[in-house]
C-alpha cells in the first residue's frame, strides 16, 4: 500500500464519518458544521487526486459560500439549542432499508463491472487547459453552457432577492 493509498482511505473515512454525523445529529447547527468538515474532506480528496482547480473551486464555493449561507439561514430561522424533531420511526425504518439496499446493490454492480482500459496518457488538469476548454472558440469548447450558467446565476440572484425581500407594510 502506497502512502497515496493510505491518504485516500483516511480521507474517505473522514468524509463518510462526517457525512453520517451530518445526517444523524440532532442539533441543526452541529449538522451544518459536520457538513462543512465533510465538504473540506471532499476538497482534500480532490487535492489527493491532483485536481487542484476543482479543490480550489470546492473550497471557495461550498465551504466559503454555501455553508456560510446555510449557517446564516439557520441563525435567521432556528431557535438555538433546540433539538430537531425526529422523523416517524416507520419512515426511518423504510428510509434506512431503501438506502442500505440501494447502496448494497450499487456497490455490488460496481464490483462486478469490468471497466474499459484507459488510454495511456497522463492526466494533466492544468488551469490553462481548463480555461481553453471553457471559453475558447474551438468547436469542442463549452462556451455556450458557460454563458447559459452565467445567465442562470444572474436569474437565481434576482429571483432570490424577489422572493426573500420584505414586503412593504402598505402593500400587505
Amino acid at each position, binding site marked *: 500500500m502506497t502512502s497515496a493509498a493510505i491518504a485516500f482511505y483516511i480521507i474517505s473515512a473522514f468524509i463518510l464519518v462526517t457525512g453520517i454525523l451530518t*445526517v444523524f445529529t440532532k442539533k*441543526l447547527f452541529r449538522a451544518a458544521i459536520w457538513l462543512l468538515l465533510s465538504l473540506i474532506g*471532499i476538497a482534500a480528496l480532490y487535492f489527493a487526486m491532483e485536481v487542484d482547480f*476543482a479543490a480550489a473551486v470546492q473550497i471557495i464555493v461550498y465551504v466559503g459560500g454555501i455553508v456560510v449561507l446555510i449557517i446564516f439561514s439557520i441563525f435567521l*430561522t432556528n431557535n438555538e439549542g433546540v433539538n430537531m424533531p425526529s422523523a416517524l420511526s416507520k419512515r426511518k425504518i423504510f428510509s434506512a432499508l431503501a438506502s442500505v439496499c440501494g447502496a448494497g446493490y*450499487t456497490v455490488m454492480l*460496481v*464490483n462486478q463491472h469490468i471497466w474499459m482500459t*484507459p488510454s495511456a496518457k497522463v492526466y494533466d488538469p492544468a488551469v490553462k487547459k481548463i480555461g481553453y476548454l471553457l471559453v475558447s472558440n474551438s468547436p469542442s469548447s463549452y462556451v455556450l*453552457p458557460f454563458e447559459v450558467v452565467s445567465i442562470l446565476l444572474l436569474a437565481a440572484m434576482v429571483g432570490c432577492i424577489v422572493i426573500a425581500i420584505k414586503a412593504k407594510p402598505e402593500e400587505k
Partner: protein
Amino acid sequence: MNGVPLTHMIIVSTLLFFIGAYGFLTRRNLIAMLMSVELMLNSVNINFIAFNKYLFPDNLDGLVYTIFIIAIAAAEAAVAIAIIINLFRNTRSIDAEYADKLKN
C-alpha cells in the same frame, strides 16, 4: 493516487450518496434536507472527477461538468434558502410537515 482502484473511489461516492438520500428522506427540517442534497451533489462530483481521471485522462470534460454542477448547486442553494426564509416569515416554522399552505 496510484494504488487506489477506481472501484474504491466509486464505492466512497456511492456510500456518500446514500447517506445523503437517507438524510433527505428522514429529516423534517427544510435546511437539514438541503444539507443532505448538498452531500448527494458532492458525491456525484467525486464520480465525475474519478471517471475523468481514471478512464479518460486525455480530455477534461468531467472536470468541466463538475464546475458546472458546483455553479448550479450554488444557485440552487441560494434559491432554496430564499424560499425557506420566506416560508419561515409566513408560517414561523420550517418543518416540512407543516409546509402545506398550498393545499388549502
